[in-house]
């Protein structure tokens, strides 16, 4: 017997993502999903962002990793609540995992949740978590050709952080070509060259994020 379904494969994930989105809106909290390769500097970027914005916003972090809790411990050492999700082998976060993590946070007290997705340039792109914005980090040592190889992640991101910019001189990274390809893929995404560890360039990224948070508040009120 033939049964027609005609349903999105990730419908279950999308429905839970919408439920997350409604919860975030009700609590008035802005959620950003940071995606990057392993070692691109996601945790360092989060720590730098916290330092730049902690006077203005109450922040929490959701850390996604295949295993371990070292990232959550680094964030907690800065006095910021952090929940560690261990995906146990999965290469990306799904909305159900985020929902469980959010259960452990005092959502009403927060202005901003930063989600650190699992280090991967492919898998996180198709999974809606209910976030307001996906942002990706590419680090200079990874090379300027990455947008050719992983176009999807550059297209779904609202902004691109070019991290480890202080190492530009020692790597064969063609910034002009990188900018040109990213702008072809995603003409509206700003690119923020920065060094999360030295702090250079962090302000421009943090101000963009703050403007995005304020914008979301205006549209919801």
């Amino acid at each position, binding site marked *: 017997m*033939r049964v027609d379904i005609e349903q999105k*494969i990730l419908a279950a994930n999308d429905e839970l993502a919408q439920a997350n989105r409604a919860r975030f809106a009700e609590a008035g909290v802005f959620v950003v999903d940071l995606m990057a390769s392993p070692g691109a500097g996601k945790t360092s970027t989060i720590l730098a962002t916290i330092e730049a914005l902690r006077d203005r916003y109450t922040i929490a972090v959701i850390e996604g990793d295949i295993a371990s809790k070292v990232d959550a411990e680094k964030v907690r050492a800065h006095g910021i609540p952090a929940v560690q999700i261990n995906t146990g082998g999965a290469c990306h976060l799904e909305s159900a995992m985020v929902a469980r993590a959010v259960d452990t946070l005092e959502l009403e007290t927060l202005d901003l949740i930063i989600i650190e997705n699992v280090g991967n340039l492919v898998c996180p792109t*198709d999974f809606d978590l209910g976030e307001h914005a996906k942002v990706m980090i590419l680090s200079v040592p990874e090379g300027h050709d990455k947008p050719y190889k992983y176009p999807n992640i550059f297209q779904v991101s609202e902004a691109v952080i070019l991290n480890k910019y202080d190492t530009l001189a020692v790597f064969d990274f063609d910034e002009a070509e990188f900018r040109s390809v990213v702008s072809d893929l995603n003409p509206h995404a700003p690119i923020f060259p920065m060094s999360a560890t030295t702090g250079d360039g962090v302000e421009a990224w943090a101000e963009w994020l703050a403007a995005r948070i304020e914008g979301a508040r205006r549209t919801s009120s």
Partner: protein
Amino acid sequence: MHEAGIAAGILTSAIDAAGKAGGSRITTVDVTIGVLTEVLEDALQFAWDAAIVDTIAEGSTLAVTMIPARSRCLDCGHEFGHGRYDGTRCPSCEGYVVELVTGRELVIDGIDID
């Protein structure tokens, strides 16, 4: 292994639909997948074979239809096929305001059950 999550999603929907239709065994599952989803058909087949073990879909065939990427230019209306990363500019008028028509599908079309 992004395909493992996709395979699990397909299986959940298929078993759910089979249960509602009163089926006890799933023999075929038809899915449509756009090339821009970065799902590799071989990897998906591999993940499917692993996911269906000890379920009512064990031994079933996953029939995959891959859909190429196409976009439409909102300036001149030209519709064009393209690759994974070169679809953001109209080849006819060189405009940048284009809308994706196909290529990001992730749809379970239907199943055959006994």
